[in-house]
C-alpha cells in the first residue's frame, strides 16, 4: 500500500505547529497503525529528518499510552486503540490525517505527544482505596453481588487513554472520571472513601480545565474499552448523594 499522511508537526509546547505531508510506501495491510508510523520514521531518520514523535507502549491495546486522532476520530475508524488499528482499515492511495489529542488540559509536548498528567492528578485526588492490600484475600471473605462486580469490572476496563476527552467537542473528562468513580464506588473495598472520592475527583477534574459535559455522547462512541455513556449519569448520582451525605465547608 502507498499512503499519503498529513501529520501534525510541532517542535515543542512553546512553538506553533502545522500539518506536514509525507508519502509512505510499502505499507502492509497487516501492519498496525503504529508500525506504519515506525516505517515512516525509519525513512525520516535515513533522510536525516526529525522522526514524528508519538506515544506508545504495550502495543497490545491494554496500557492506554497510544493516542492519535486519525481522520478526525480518536484512535481512528475502528473502535479500538491506535496500536490495535490495522492498515487493512485503509485503502491504497488514501490520504490520512493524523493529529494529537486536542484539549487545553492535554497540552501538546511534541508532534503527536500530549501531556496527560491531568488524568494522573484526577486519580490522585481519589481514585484509590485505603483498604490494606497484600496477597489476594479469600474470595468469599467479602461477598460482592454479581451485578456490582460486573459493573465494577466494566468500568475498571478504562485504560485512561484520553480518547473521551479528545473526542468530546467540549474537552470534557466526565467519562474517564465516571469510569474511575463507578469502578470503586460500587465495591465494599471502595466504600470508606465513597463520598470524598467523587467530590474530590470531580473537583480536581474541574481544576484541570476540562470542559463541562453537554451529553453529546462522542466520548462513549470513541472509547476503545466501551465505557458506556450512562456512566456519567451514575457519577452525577454519586456526586449528588455525596453532597447530601458529606457536607463539607
Amino acid at each position, binding site marked *: 500500500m502507498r499512503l499519503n499522511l498529513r501529520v501534525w508537526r510541532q517542535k515543542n509546547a512553546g512553538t506553533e505547529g502545522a500539518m506536514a505531508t509525507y508519502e509512505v510506501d510499502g505499507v502492509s495491510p497487516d501492519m498496525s497503525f503504529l508500525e506504519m508510523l515506525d516505517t515512516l520514521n525509519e525513512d525520516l531518520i535515513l533522510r536525516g529528518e526529525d522522526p514524528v514523535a508519538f506515544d506508545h507502549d504495550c502495543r497490545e491495546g491494554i496500557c492506554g499510552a497510544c493516542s492519535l486522532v486519525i481522520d478526525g476520530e480518536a484512535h481512528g475508524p475502528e473502535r479500538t486503540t491506535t496500536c490495535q488499528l490495522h492498515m487493512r482499515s485503509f485503502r491504497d492511495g488514501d490520504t490520512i490525517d493524523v493529529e494529537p489529542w486536542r484539549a487545553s488540559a492535554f497540552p501538546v509536548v511534541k508532534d503527536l505527544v500530549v501531556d496527560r498528567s491531568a488524568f494522573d492528578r484526577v486519580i490522585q485526588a481519589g481514585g484509590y482505596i485505603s483498604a490494606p492490600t497484600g496477597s489476594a484475600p479469600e474470595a468469599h471473605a467479602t461477598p460482592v453481588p454479581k451485578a456490582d462486580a460486573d459493573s465494577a469490572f466494566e468500568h475498571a476496563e478504562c485504560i485512561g487513554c484520553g480518547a473521551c476527552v479528545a473526542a468530546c467537542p467540549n474537552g470534557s473528562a466526565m467519562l474517564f472520571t465516571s469510569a474511575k468513580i463507578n469502578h470503586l464506588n460500587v465495591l465494599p473495598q471502595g466504600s470508606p472513601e465513597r463520598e470524598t472520592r467523587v467530590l474530590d475527583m470531580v473537583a480536581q477534574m474541574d481544576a484541570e480545565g476540562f470542559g463541562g459535559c*453537554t451529553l453529546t455522547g462522542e466520548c462513549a462512541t470513541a472509547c476503545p474499552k466501551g465505557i458506556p455513556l450512562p456512566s456519567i449519569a451514575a457519577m452525577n448520582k454519586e456526586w449528588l448523594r455525596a453532597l447530601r451525605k458529606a457536607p463539607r465547608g
Partner: protein
Amino acid sequence: MAVSGLIMLGYLVAHVAGNLKVFFGPEEFNAYGHWLRVMGAPVLHHEWALWLVRIVLLAAVVAHAVSAYQLSRRDIKARPTAYVHRRKRSSYATRTMRWGGIILALFIVWHVLDLTTGTVHPGGFEEGKPYQNVVDTFSTWYGNVVYIVAMLALGLHVRHGFWSAAQTLGVGSARRERLLKVLANALALVLTAGFVSVPLAVMTGVVS
C-alpha cells in the same frame, strides 16, 4: 441547566394544554384566559398566582441562560484548537442546542410583546380577548413563520434537553436509557405538534 430547564418544560406542558382550548371556541378560550388571572382566588388576589408563575419562569429563564453562558465559555476554553480533519459530530438536536436556545430566547421576547403586552401585535390588541388576538397574529405570514420555526427549534431543544437533564440529575442508567430517549422524543413531538396546531388551524380556517 437541568433544574431550570425542567421548570420551563413543566410550564410548557401546561401551556400547550391551555393553547389547545382554542379549538373549543372563543368563549371557552377567553374564559380560560380569564381564569389564569383569577387562579388561586379567593385566597390569592387578582393575578397574584399568574405573577408568581411569571416570576418563577423569569428566574428559570435567567438561570438557564446564565448557566448556558458559563458552560459554553468553559467548554470553548477547554477545547481551543479544532481538529484539522473535521467530521460531523453528534446528532442534529445536540449540535443545535446553543443556537436553538438563542432562537428560543428571541422568540420568547417577541411572543410576550405580541400576545401578552400587545406592543408588537398586528391589528388592535384587546386585553381579555385572547382568542381574537391569537387569530390576528396567525393571520400574518411572519407571525406564522416565526412561530412555527421557533416551535421546531423547541422540539429539537427538548429532545436533547430532557434526556440530558435526566443524566445531569443522575436519573439515567443503562436500563432506563431507552425509556428516557423515548420520553424525550415523545415530549418534543407532543409540544411541537400541539403548539404548531394553533397557527395551522388559523391558516386553514378551523379557528377564525
